[in-house]
């Protein structure tokens, strides 16, 4: 049976280990994003949002909920991968896997599953928190679920690349601080790019997070600044490209094998 195969047992082991770790340190993994997003809802959605009025045909609070959920999914799937994989590398216990018969693809899939689990878990908690501030009607369930899942995979893979190249803890903070956060804030979480001048709209379209946030917003609200087909294509291209890079790096042993 497939479930008895060594490959499946190896994958399952990594996933159980990751999920157990995430749940064991829930005060670090689940609570902080819930508190941060609650503050966003209160300050941006409730206090400032009332003065802004409508955006994209919805009240401001409803408009920012998909963006904030997506922001938490992105940061948590990325953060889980980079901290867990780099932690294993730094503590040398990654060697437990490297000396085992586990194929690299299984190591990659196991860690990605763990990171996606945390991203989706935090996304679910933030969605739950948002219900205290607004009513959510899901416009297209399939789009909503597939976009959030695929986006979590994209950022889990990106986190793996960061972790592979990182040599010290500072290195795992640079990308989230100087790349991920600016791209997320400029990715249409808080505004519709239709408010921007033409030039900045074009610039914004070079930001992949814009497609993910807007596709997710389409799934929930039914409105988007970009085509859903294009959004899925962008996400798909990133998954294939980042997945290939990750696997190549693992196969070559970059940052892992001397």
């Amino acid at each position, binding site marked *: 049976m497939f479930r*008895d*195969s*060594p*490959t499946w*047992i*190896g994958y*399952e*082991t*990594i996933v*159980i*280990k990751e999920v157990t770790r995430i749940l064991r340190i829930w005060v670090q993994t689940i609570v902080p994003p819930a508190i941060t997003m609650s503050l966003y809802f209160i300050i941006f959605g409730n206090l400032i949002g009332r003065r802004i009025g409508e955006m994209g045909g919805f009240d401001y609070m409803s408009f920012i909920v998909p963006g904030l959920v997506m922001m938490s999914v992105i940061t948590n799937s990325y953060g889980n991968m980079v901290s867990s994989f780099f932690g*294993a590398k730094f*503590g*040398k*216990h990654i*060697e*437990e*896997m*490297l*000396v*085992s*018969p*586990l*194929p690299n693809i299984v190591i990659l899939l196991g860690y990605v599953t763990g990171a996606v689990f945390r991203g989706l878990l935090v996304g679910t908690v933030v969605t739950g928190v948002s219900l205290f501030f607004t009513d959510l009607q899901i416009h297209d369930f399939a789009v909503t679920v597939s976009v959030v899942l695929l986006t979590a995979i994209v950022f889990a893979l990106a986190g793996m690349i960061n972790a592979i190249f990182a040599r010290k803890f500072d290195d795992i903070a640079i990308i989230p601080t100087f790349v991920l956060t600016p791209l997320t804030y400029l990715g249409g979480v808080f505004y519709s790019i239709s408010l921007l001048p033409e030039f900045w709209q074009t610039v914004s379209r070079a930001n992949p997070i814009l497609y993910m946030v807007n596709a997710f917003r389409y799934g929930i609200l039914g409105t988007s600044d970009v085509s859903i087909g294009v959004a899925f294509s962008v996400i798909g291209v990133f998954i294939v490209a980042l997945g290939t890079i990750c696997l190549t790096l693992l196969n070559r*042993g970059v940052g892992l*094998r*001397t």
Partner: protein
Amino acid sequence: MKALDIQGLEKTYANGVRALDGVDLSVEEGDFFALLGPNGAGKSTLIGIVSSLVNMSAGGVRVFDADIARERSRAMSMLGLVPQEVNFNQFERPWDIIINQAGYYGVPRRQAKERCEMLLNELKLWDKRMDLSRELSGGMKRRLMIARAMIHDPRLLILDEPTAGVDIEIRRSMWRYISKINEAGTTVILTTHYLEEAEQLCRNVAIIDHGTIVENTTVKNLISQLDVETFVFDLAEDIAAAPTIEDYEISMRDARTLEISVPKTRPINQLFDALGQAGITVLSMRNKANRLEELFIRLVEKSGPPEEPADVS
């Protein structure tokens, strides 16, 4: 069958340091094999390549006929590694560390639990199974790494200085355990700085220096190469000067202690007779150094001083 077969193994690090320079080495199934060498000789690089933690520059390695480059998974499934440094997650419990390791080797969970219980009991870690592993003593951490390496019942077990820094009592209990594993059929390769350990445990030995094998023979053969042994003699009374006895090199350590190099061809009775005639009464005698240690030093000295800093392996 060969448990390990290494042919023309070379490793040059990115900084240009040549750690292995064409190593050929084979270890027969069931052997208890010692790999000795000074710091920086290439021992850990060699073990790193065999366990796939280090990429080789050239050559080939086969574990029970499985090529580690072409059949990595099959080769690794037959190999267990106890590394020199602690490399488990110190925030996890021994039980979880071992069960997870079993999973990486595809051991079903129920079977892993049974085996984990057996190993933790055998290695006297059962009572500590739910403690944080960082709270374990140094000796317990070493034993935990042995249990972890044995969870998938490997055919070849490699131990990289397993007893470094542990007290003599634990060291001896580890020797007994490793010997038991070997008697049960597991091929064991041991690197150690304690040459007494190699002499007591191992049947065959290879000495590596400057990235090449300078000696590869049985421990018995190696010791038979020792043509002079140095003994320390404790005397009953003070003496003013070291006596001169033909064929023996004698030096004074202090007024009541002599160091005498005894050629293997000369009977030791003759030395005692000569000492007696010189009016010297011997209370006790002992080897100055472990026999293997003397040979090791000679072989390593013969191969010359290191060319690179000794921090590559």
